[in-house]
């Protein structure tokens, strides 16, 4: 039975959260209408002229937008793909470690970077990757010429991808480790009786065992192909690497807030939101279809 006073209590409980949700998510959504305006801050939303889809057409026309879109896809997909491979391989290897102490030690070490901010890590990376930095010193030991890792378009996106893997592979592996522990031990015993080598067990028992999890993670990642990680890039890039390192979020921030082209910045954000929405829809559908997983 359900009492009326109970229902009232639930409403009271959810009210503050709902209020904040409206205030900080739905109200900004309303402000997104300036994507359809030639917004003049002095006139405000009410009095700025409406321009229909002009801002969108402008973005489709300029080279910047194409470049930024391509960079975003490249970096995000590179991260998703490589991170998945590295994390799976790491989880499989860690699963082979029989010694409890070392195993815990390894885990303790690799999870740590996940909890550090990109501000801190970017500060560290900038020192590490400078011309006089430790990494170039190491290259010099092998007789290699110094590389301006953060200062040339060719290397920059790879620095972004690999530093992200460095930060996240341990953490990402947790879900695969969890999946590995739930594999039925008798499967290994059977394989052993059949004379399977260790590598064979890894490839034919462990890997298939976590395949559903891999499919799940991969499909949920679809929603992220327009997220290249603002915090990371904004703290590592500079004008010289815009051609390969500028992504949708950094572009929207720079054009919209720094240069004060509110309408263009908002249009970029709105485009990203719409495309992301579609991708998330796709990803949940894929997750449901192929991994039998529903989040809500």
């Amino acid at each position, binding site marked *: 039975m359900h009492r009326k006073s109970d229902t009232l209590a639930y409403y009271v409980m959810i009210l503050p959260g709902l209020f904040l949700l409206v205030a900080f998510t739905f109200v900004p959504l309303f402000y997104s209408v300036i994507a359809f305006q030639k917004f003049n801050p*002095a006139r405000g939303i009410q*009095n700025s002229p409406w321009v229909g889809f002009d801002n969108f057409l402008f973005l489709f026309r300029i080279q910047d937008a194409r470049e930024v879109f391509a960079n975003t896809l490249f970096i995000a997909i590179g991260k998703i793909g490589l991170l998945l491979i590295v994390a799976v391989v790491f989880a499989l290897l860690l699963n082979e470690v029989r010694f409890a102490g070392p195993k815990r030690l390894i885990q303790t070490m690799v999870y740590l970077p996940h909890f550090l901010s990109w501000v801190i890590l970017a500060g560290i990376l900038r020192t590490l990757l400078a011309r006089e930095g430790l990494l170039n010193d190491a290259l010099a030991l092998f007789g290699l010429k110094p590389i301006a890792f953060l200062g040339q*378009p060719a290397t920059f996106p790879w620095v972004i991808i690999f530093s992200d893997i460095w930060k996240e592979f341990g953490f990402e592996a947790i879900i695969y480790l969890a999946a590995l522990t739930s594999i039925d031990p008798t499967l290994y015993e059977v394989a052993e009786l059949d004379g399977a080598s260790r590598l064979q067990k890894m490839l034919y028992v462990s890997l298939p065992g976590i395949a559903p999890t891999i499919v799940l993670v991969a499909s949920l990642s679809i929603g992220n192909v327009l997220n290249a990680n603002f915090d990371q890039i904004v703290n590592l890039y500079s*004008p*010289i690497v815009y051609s390969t390192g500028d992504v949708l979020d950094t572009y929207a921030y720079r054009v919209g807030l720094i240069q004060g082209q509110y309408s263009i910045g908002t249009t970029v954000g709105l485009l990203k939101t719409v495309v992301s929405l579609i991708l998330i829809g796709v990803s949940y559908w894929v997750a449901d279809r192929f991994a039998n997983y529903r989040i809500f």
Partner: protein
Amino acid sequence: MKKSWLLKATVITLMATFILSACAAPATPTPAVSATEPPAVTEPTQAPAATSAPAQAGAEWRMTDAYAAYPEKITLTLVKGGQENASLLPEGESIEANRALQYIEDTLNIDITFEWVVPTDSYADKLNLAISSGEIPDAMIVTPIQLQQLVEAGVLEDLTPYVEKYANKDLLENWNQTKGVALQAATIDGKIWGVPNVQPQADAPLMVWVRKDWLDKLGLSAPETVDDLEALAKAFMEQDPDGDGAADTYGLTGTLQPVMVPSNLHGFDVIFNAYGAFPTLFYRDASGQVVYGSTQPQMKDALARLNAMYQAGLIDPDFATKNTDTSNQIVVGGEGGIMIGPWWISWWPLNDSVKNDPNADWQPYLLKDNNGQFTYSMGDYTNSFVVVKKGYVHPEVVVKILNIQNDISYGFNDAPQYYPNFNEIWNLLFPVPFLIEQPYVVERMARDYQAALDGQVSPDTFGDAMQIEYEQIQKDMADPRSDPANWATRMARLNAASLLAGGYSEVRADPAAVRFYSVDPNWPSLKKMEEEALLLIITGAQPLDYFDTFVQQWNESGGADLLAAMNQ
């Protein structure tokens, strides 16, 4: 011949130094001419006889109005940047309460309050925000774009009736010396909507500052050309000028902004100028057409040179990811002996270098271009405006405040200047941190100081501000670098400014250009394209021929249309 248009550029004709009675005199007009205009010598305004007397030679009615106190106290709300430097103010004074502000309030019988005070960097953001929320103060300083937006929105008071009526003679003269460009910039649809500033033109030409102690130690001579500069950078890198036995000295420093006019610290502008290239300027070429400096063929020669220097390791290998502060640390920390910058960098950051190492004997030098001339990119005369909110009842008060501020700056009209470090803090003291300067005031003051040192004029005739500086100069001459502040003033005001006073040719942006590009939606991406291309070519990430690709892209992405519009 690619530099033929330059022949039209006229070298500043230096007027014989007037035996100036003091600064009350309007500047010795230094007729600077842009590349196309025929050399025109502005009529020198007559110099008043006495320092202390307000310039009464002109119309007295104007003088009265320009300083008249209000019968009843009026209020004025303002906003301000500069908060991060408040600690530079003398003990017991603040941005909201200081002697200069008090003097202005007392003189005009007004009560000034600040709605907010923020750090310099945040001012533009904060102001945009205030504008968008409709909470603008009675008066404020705005950019050309904001001026346009505010006028469109109809929230400003028309200042046409007040600007020329209430401005004192010095302000009018200073505007006049811009050949009308300043007031023209403030005029939209035939009405004056803002009071325009006038920037000292000395900030644009970049000099090469070199540690003379290192030069002497290595037995080298002062640089005069880009070739000399390159040789010097090489020597400083390879010959251990700091004598610590380690190859830890830099050649040339740079920043991620290799070109910016004016006041580009660690900028490469001067190297471009040497090749007859004037990047970032929309100027009129020999045929009278507006062209964009960054896409001209001369750029390619300069870029080739910079790239060669970079490949040879003579330019800081990480310059493209460094900003001004980062590169300053190289010279301040004693790791570099060359810094390119405007005339005033002895006040900052080189004073810090002297604080760290009293032997650091930085001296300024001008570089000649490939034709043996001194030719530099010049900045705009005007880049900001004071505007008044629509409906404010005493719009003229901003002009009156600017009159007094100008007097305090230069010790005119007996306006007291109380502060020894005035040059560092003037923008904190003044309610409207905004100067309407004589465009060539820096050069003129250098001539005055030199004349006083030569005994041709008595320093007693100088105003307060100049007397303080003159003392600093003399102290440093007696005991060089014993006090970094004195040294900085001497280097900037005398050594560096005298170089400029020696004359140079100017290449100046077409004054109408800003109206076009500031509202062009393609402009930010054109700018980005340009910044990237320059950095990529200098660092060799792209070959030199990429410049042609860039020019083509620039033209196709709206640059050609922009130029076409300007040339109509």
